[in-house]
């Protein structure tokens, strides 16, 4: 009994160590005084953190990644919320087909999505690089948007809005006045999940980025192909703390983890 009661927490401890360890190394390396990634770090300095802000391409690609993550997720939600509503509240003909089609991008490897878009959408229709990336990121986030919003719609009893409709409200009015306020948390959770997915996305963007237009992770890989110093670790730490801050705030105010 006591062996068991020790075994489970010990496993948790080891698993957490395994999951968090690399993160600690990255943070430590950000403050390194040496020329390469090393642990324990050689000395302490802020120069790599400061260097992040001086690399010009990081600024441009950070802007691009922010645009794709915010814009793409917003677009995915605008498509995904009505679809989720139809799936959860209506007798939709071919509901399974719709569900499969919108969630397909999760199963297909990103590198294939990127390649297919490049060869059969971007080149034949002469789509610019930025719109192409935007379309790809929207498609990529759509499954998450539908999944999370559907989950929060399913948790909400549908008789409230049915009652509202019976009492003379239009269906649209019922949606905005009754449903939306109740699934706001779910929508924000979907937004955060989509944002993180899009922001860290590599394989899709690998083929789609082009002259002058690059997402931040692609830029980080390109940077490391040439220079192997701790500035990428520093950048990753900064981004991680930014994400943690956002998620922490979301959890604090909205109970983010209920929806994921």
């Amino acid at each position: 009994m006591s062996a068991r009661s020790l075994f489970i927490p010990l496993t948790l401890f080891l698993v957490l160590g395994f999951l968090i360890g690399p993160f600690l190394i990255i943070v430590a390396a950000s403050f390194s005084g040496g020329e390469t990634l090393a642990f324990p770090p050689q000395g302490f300095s802020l120069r790599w953190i400061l260097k992040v802000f001086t690399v010009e391409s990081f600024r441009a690609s950070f802007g691009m990644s922010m645009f794709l993550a915010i814009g793409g997720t917003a677009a995915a939600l605008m498509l995904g919320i009505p679809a989720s509503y139809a799936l959860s509240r209506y007798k939709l003909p071919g509901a399974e087909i719709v569900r499969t089609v919108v969630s397909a991008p999760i199963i297909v490897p990103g590198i294939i999505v990127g390649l297919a878009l490049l060869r059969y959408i971007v080149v034949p229709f002469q789509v610019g690089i930025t719109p192409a990336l935007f379309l790809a990121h929207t498609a990529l986030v759509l499954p998450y948007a539908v999944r999370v919003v559907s989950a929060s719609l399913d948790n909400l009893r549908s008789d409230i809005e049915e009652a509202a409709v019976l009492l003379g409200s239009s269906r649209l009015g019922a949606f905005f006045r009754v449903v939306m306020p109740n699934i706001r948390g779910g929508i924000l959770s979907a937004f955060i999940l989509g944002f993180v997915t899009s922001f860290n996305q590599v394989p899709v963007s690998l083929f789609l980025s082009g002259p002058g237009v690059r997402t931040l992770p692609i830029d980080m890989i390109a940077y490391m192909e040439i220079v192997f110093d701790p500035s990428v670790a520093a950048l990753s730490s900064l981004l991680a703390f930014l994400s943690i801050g956002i998620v922490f705030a979301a959890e604090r105010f909205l109970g983010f983890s209920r929806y994921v």
Partner: protein
Amino acid sequence: MKKVILASGAALMLTMGAAQAQEKTLTISVYAFAQDEFKQLVYDPFEKICGCKLVVETGNSVERLAKLEANKANPMVDMAVVSMADALAASRAGLIDKVDTAKLSNFNKIYDVAKDPNGDGMSVGYTFYATSIAYRSDKMKIESWADLLKPEYASHIAWPNVTTNQGPPALYMLGLALGKDTPDLAAPIEAVGEKKGEIVTFYEKSSQLVQLMQQEEIWAAPIGRFSWAPFTKLDMPIAWANPKEGQTGGMNVMVVTKGSKNRELALQFMDFWLSTDTQTKLAEKLIDSPANKEVKLSDAIANNLTYGEETAKSLKLIPSAVALDNRAGWVKTWNEKVGQ
């Protein structure tokens, strides 16, 4: 919340649209390396001269060539710098045009070997690099390319993958060392294959080697001179080998893409890059060895570059046509002997 998102999305769209509507732009495709320095020494000064905007695509030679091919019908890039062999490949695939050298005022200042490296008038060389072996001089002694495969060394080296620019030249030199230098590189590939279990990795990105060297994962690796500088910053005795078979290397060239709408601007940019002033500045920062013979360098700098027409001529380069005609075969043999 949604309104805020919508508004910020729209604002971003607008600013991007505005940026795209700017005057004339020149799109160039270059190696991803030393971009901060290139921006300072080449791109920014050129933008001031031409009053135009430079858009830069970066990546390795093969990947960028694949993108040129994919966008053949609607070329986005106006001028590219690639390896000699890739320039020939691009020319054979109909991706590039003849370079109008009459419009390059600095053309007569560059070494003869760089004027038309592939003999087809489609490219102009702008830099050379030697490829040799960077090694820990306290751990090993390198006198021949074959020394790398010695039993006591093999488990401490990284070898360039056959798909990289350094791969075939390194194999070619190993072939010379083994006394079997056929164009199919069969003997050296076989020799590497016999040691594949011991060799630490077949590297694709040379920047990784600095990390591996620092962690004592490896003691030696064949590298191009352009990736040498970071090794000198490590707190270790690392030397540049001078094997008895000589050094190999490569030349990087400039090409203009077929269907480019900014031909004049592209040529103007190439001329600027080839000028004595620009080439000197790039050399002094140890970025690119010059192809312009008017460039004068101090010994300290010259020793860390591939400097001078004699040095350039002494490099044992694989002719582009040989590289191109055998590339598929090399990869096939490599996959059979080394890949699995």
